[in-house]
């Protein structure tokens, strides 16, 4: 049944790079699977791990955190904080068997195509993992 399961993926996107990349994917009419839902923040550093766990707890099968490439943060260093939190969150979730449900990826405003490609791959991977709900 996992083969035909339609995952639900929450994507956190920063206003300046990754959200712009998602827009560009649209402007360039790239098609990608409709399983993602974008939450827009000004900077990925606003995303606290609590948001990620909330998404997983409320029905998301996976979460993707996105931001500007290292060195390109619109706020100088926000994405480094995101990276630090992600790596510790991931390590924690690995212990709970949930590590592969959360990812971090950088997208510049120009990488609409890469974003579309990434989502195709990610959706494929999450399909393989199967639904997260019903852990109890």
């Amino acid at each position, binding site marked *: 049944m996992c083969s035909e399961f339609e995952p*639900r993926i929450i994507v956190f996107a920063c206003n300046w790079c990754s959200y712009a990349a998602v827009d560009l994917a649209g402007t360039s009419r790239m098609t*990608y699977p409709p399983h993602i*839902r974008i939450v827009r*923040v000004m900077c990925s550093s606003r995303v*606290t791990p609590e948001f990620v766990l909330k998404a997983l707890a409320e029905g998301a099968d996976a979460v993707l955190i996105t931001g500007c490439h290292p060195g390109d943060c*619109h*706020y100088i260093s926000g994405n480094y904080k995101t990276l630090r939190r992600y790596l510790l969150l991931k390590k924690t979730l690995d212990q709970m068997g949930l590590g592969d449900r959360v990812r971090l990826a950088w997208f*510049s*405003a120009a990488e609409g195509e890469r974003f579309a490609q990434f989502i195709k791959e990610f959706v494929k991977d999450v399909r393989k993992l199967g639904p997260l709900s019903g852990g109890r």
Partner: protein
Amino acid sequence: MSVEEVKIGVYVCHCGKNIAGVIDPRKIAEFASKLPGVVVARDYPYMCSEPGQALIEKDIRELRVNRVVVAACSPRMHEPTFQGVLARAGLNPYLLEMVNLREHVTWVHGDDPEAAEVKAKELVSAGVERVARLEPLETERIEVVQNALVIGGGIAGIRAALNLANAGFKVYLVEREPSIGGKMAKLDKTFPTLDCSQCILTPLMVDVANHSNISLYTYSEVESVEGSPGNFLVKIRLKPTYVDWSKCVGCGICIEKCPSRVPDEFDEGLRQRKAIYIQFPQAVPRKAVIDPDACFYLTKGVCRVCERVCPAGAIDFEQEPRYIELKVGTIIVAVGFDLYNPVKLYEYGYGRYKNVITGLQLERLSSAGGPTGGKIVRPSDRKIPKTVAIVLCAGSRDKAHLEYCCRIGCMAGLKHAYYIKTSIPDAKVFICYTDMRSFGKGYEEFYSRIRSMEDVYFVRGRPMEIFELPDGTLQMDVYDQNSNRMLKIEADLIVLEVGVVPPKGFEELRKKLKIPTSPEGWGLELHPKLKPVEITTDGIYLAGFIQGPKDIPDAVAHGGAAAAAAITFMSKGYIESEPYIAEVNEELCSGCGICVPMCPYDAISIVEREGRRIAKVDITKCKGCGACAGACPSGAMQQRHFKDSQLMPEIVALARGI
């Protein structure tokens, strides 16, 4: 904070067929009308149109709608538009939430309308959840410094600087070379009019030097950039020239006596210059510079000839880099381009065969001020070439090198054929092209003019490989798609019209200025059609080649446009302060101090308040990234408009779905 009951209006845009072509906006509005707190939900062909906006205004006035969801395009496109609508209707503009149905749904899921509709509905319901919890925000006006910084003294930068200066703004022009002028200064003539490049450029260079509103810093680079739009603080590094320019008159005696020789960059290495040199005859400023890597004294510790001969006593080996700080409201980036490294085109033998040269080198050969005084010879033996092959798209339009078109090679190639034919009338010229792109004003005419010249042959195809014969003559096979014949061409000189790339050092500069780039590394404009000079940061603009390949007319126009944008920004005189700043709930704050180092702008400090330590945010410094809120262990630190209480319900709605 208002206690009045939340009344949400949802407005679904068709965006012509862009949205309505995939999903039915009526269905979305119908769905939205049943969501909690929604008092009205409408759809309209173009919400951003005047009547569309009027629709929203009317509901705010008559139905007392106090929260607005616009389900249309990206907020990065029209959020300001609709915030304006709310403001006009007397509602706080930040009680708006835009749902991105176009870029995030219909444009990308056209292949799956059912899924697109579900996604659209879910995004709308999340938007409603969020908007219900938004709070009115106030901003304040921050004054904009009435100075501009222009980085790069090429033709685009010069044009921008002059326009700004003439409009009455103080301009700082920073150029890393000893002289302004850029690539254009190296050209002999410009296509298609064949004006003498120097003759039209030099006057502008002189204007810059003499303009009372322009301070010129050549041989200088941007060290660091701080501050925010309207109030940038820029540190400039003045590299040591080892010559006191206030004394140097540019007489050139030092240059004659200098014993050290190195290849001359300005002449594209076609001749040698001295360690102490003036970049080129028309240089502005016309001052000498000592090349520290070539100078015997600075490298080996002996010589100092120049010092002895300088009548003005201008030589100063003690010079150190100097730094100056500039406060500017806007920054124009006009750093131009470099040629693609032709050595990478191995099969063309550049660097291995003396007689394979670049178009720019031909410009120098053809230029009266050049190494040969304008006489076109072949480098190996200085013989007059009788057969010359010009290869277009050298590195361009080639997935192995540069996928994009350089936009100047075709016309330059034609111009170069003209150089050859005028200086060597009996020469044969072969032009190997892929497509002849003569799109500009007067370009096509120039093309047919060259085409009609005698002994100019157009070969449609790229040479496979170039070989050198013992006498330095070159040989190449080209398959001509026009005649469907394999041609074997023997040439005395081969000119490569090499592709173009972002200039060396741009990568560091763009990081300092936070300029987004396209995959090829060119500066990325905010909108490819509508905002060609703007970038994601207000007050910083792109001018000329750095935004992407351009010929001179386009670069000049682009430079002017950048100046106009900067002028507009500064003339307004102020900008609104950041609305999405951080705020502390002092009741909850334990003064743990975790947030302090989170702030890249040093806006947070721990202060004493009624005997308690608590965090305090300096709202003039806060730029609204939310890093502090993301780190706060107690939830005392929140970011306005992106509070936990506003994001969590949105996340929950999206995670649960409908």
